[in-house]
């Protein structure tokens, strides 16, 4: 009899536990990052982890498992397979290749796993892209530059890695905008591989060969390098150039009152993707299906822009953070909910 009572008690306890776990929704989400060469990526993962923790207040348990290491494409495919084995509900990936994940994403979908790529678009019809439109990102900086120059002047561009999909989209973005201003001439375009030192070197060379430039369109961390060359040459009053979003640069920008403007590619994109993923896992439907972009599977996030008008706000947002910290933004849970029915 005592045995029976014990058995009954444990089964009741087990029932209660399972009933409780049904009530408190819980999801497991895998985050994969295939390149760890910059603080931006580290911040991206930390923000996504924070976003997952924030779901606790809503009564949703979101457990994240992270794979982040320098891997080649087969190595990142192994990441995805590990997640499939782990039995995650969703995978959020910053992919090393636009096309190489088609087969493995198809397998993930077969296993009932939601796949979202962020920061770089993927061609797989079994995945969704949640992130910014790199072309619009490039265009926003170009538009600011063209307006700041009053629609005329000689402009140079310093680009990232030739052939990289994000770089090509950004280049297409600024070309389209500058094309609308007949008096703006692109006098030179160089590649500095998203490297700050190479950006500085490239700017030095450009200043030496084109002394009459008035505008510079430059991306990400290379902007800090390019601005260093501009300041060294004493041309900061005659040149307008795009900037970047790390605290070190925002501080310099504020102190020297640079004539700059920066499109923001926030490291919070992965956190935004995570919030979208959780809502989708809850079975909610998007108001507008994600069909944007060249692969017809993208949902574009708004791109913040920093210029003279809101520089003080941006400086306040990164105040007290380390120098490599990037200005960020992401969809809050409430923002994300507004995108759903």
């Amino acid at each position, binding site marked *: 009899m005592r045995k029976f009572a014990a058995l009954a008690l444990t089964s009741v306890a087990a029932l209660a536990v399972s009933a409780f776990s049904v009530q408190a929704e819980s999801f497991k989400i895998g985050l994969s990052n295939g390149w760890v060469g910059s603080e931006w990526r580290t911040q991206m993962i930390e923000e996504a982890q924070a976003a997952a923790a924030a779901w606790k207040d809503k009564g949703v348990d979101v457990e994240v498992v992270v794979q*982040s290491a320098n891997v080649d*494409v087969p190595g990142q495919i192994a990441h995805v397979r590990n997640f*499939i084995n782990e039995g995650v509900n969703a995978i959020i990936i910053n992919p090393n290749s636009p096309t190489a994940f088609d087969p493995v994403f198809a397998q993930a979908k077969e296993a009932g796993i939601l796949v979202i790529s962020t920061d770089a678009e993927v061609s797989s019809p079994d995945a969704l892209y949640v992130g910014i439109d790199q072309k619009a990102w490039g265009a926003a900086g170009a538009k600011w530059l063209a307006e700041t120059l009053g629609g005329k002047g000689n402009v140079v561009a310093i680009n990232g890695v030739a*052939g990289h999909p994000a770089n090509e989209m950004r280049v297409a973005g600024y070309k389209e905008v500058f094309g609308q201003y007949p008096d703006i001439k692109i006098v030179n375009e160089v590649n500095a591989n998203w490297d700050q030192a190479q950006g500085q070197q490239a700017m030095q060379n450009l200043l030496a060969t084109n002394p009459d430039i008035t505008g510079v369109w430059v991306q990400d961390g290379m902007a800090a390098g390019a601005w260093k060359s501009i300041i060294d040459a004493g041309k900061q009053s005659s040149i307008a150039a795009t900037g970047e979003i790390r605290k070190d640069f925002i501080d310099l920008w504020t102190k020297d009152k640079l004539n700059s403007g920066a499109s923001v590619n926030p490291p919070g994109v992965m956190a935004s993707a995570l919030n979208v993923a959780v809502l989708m896992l809850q079975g909610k439907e998007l108001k507008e299906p994600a069909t944007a972009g060249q692969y017809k599977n993208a949902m574009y996030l708004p791109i913040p822009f920093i210029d003279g008008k809101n520089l003080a706000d941006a400086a306040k947002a990164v105040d007290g953070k380390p120098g490599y910290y990037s200005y960020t933004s992401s969809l809050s849970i409430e923002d994300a909910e507004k995108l759903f029915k």
Partner: protein
Amino acid sequence: MTDATLPTTRPGGLKRLVERYPFLPALVIALVLLALNGFYQPRSVSFIGITGLTKTYLALMMLAIAQTYVVYAGDIDLSAGAIVSLVNVVIVVMMEKMGGSGFSVVAALGLGLATGLACGIVNGVVVAALRLQAIVATFATSIFFTGLALYVMPVAGTPAPAAFWRTYGGRFFEIPFVFYAVVVLAIMLYVLARTRLSTQLLAVGDDAQAAFQSGLPVTRIRIQGYALCGLFAALAAFCVTGDTASGDPLVGGKMTLFSVAAVVLGGSALSGGYGTVIGSIIGALIIGLINSLVFFVGTPSEWQNLVQGLAILLALMAGILVGRRARA
């Protein structure tokens, strides 16, 4: 040492076993790793889990085999990964140009094998006939092959026809395609191990001078070793293409040193003359199992690279300690 030269003394049981099967220490390590994977994530050793592991690391196994044949002769091929990239873009571009039909896939694979073979022969001629140092010469040809790959396809991304990757990832009679590939591979290796070339390569690696004096055409044998390496690198490229379904002119670059590591993990000597192909395959598996184990034990993301490197070092040390004790 005397044991090796005086076969009359009776070596101990373990010693004899490791002498007969140099890959035994690697096999033990691989089984331990497999058990650990199963312990931390039971699903990773399920049928689907093992299929995934095979799909992912079949390419590295192929490349480890490729590397083994040149290591047999005491050479090394640092261009193996670049050959993978080149063959990958060549077959993807070829399939796309010819419209992606069944025939175009077969034709592209033929061209891919020819490309791999040609690269291997170039390496062989440079190293064995022109007598340049293998490590530097193949490093140079790796840059050359990468350049060719970038010329063939400047930007990663052209998709491979669905017929191709659906075959690689698909099933026949409920058995995944990759397992058929493994069986065919096993038969091929069995036959190759019994050919004269394998023995000749080992003889050259053991003592090139002695091999030459006993009348072996050393230069030709080394070139043949590189040619075989090129062929298997092409097969590795087929696997990469099957798994990634697209072309990428840089896809194989990081695989080169992993293939060397797999050969050493498998118990072969980089100085040549001693080793097995089976060992290299197990070595490639060990690398794959370590990569997934690092994740399944829950290593924090910022430590994953570090732990992975340490684990490979540990596996190397364990293998060498066991092997040395058995052979000494």
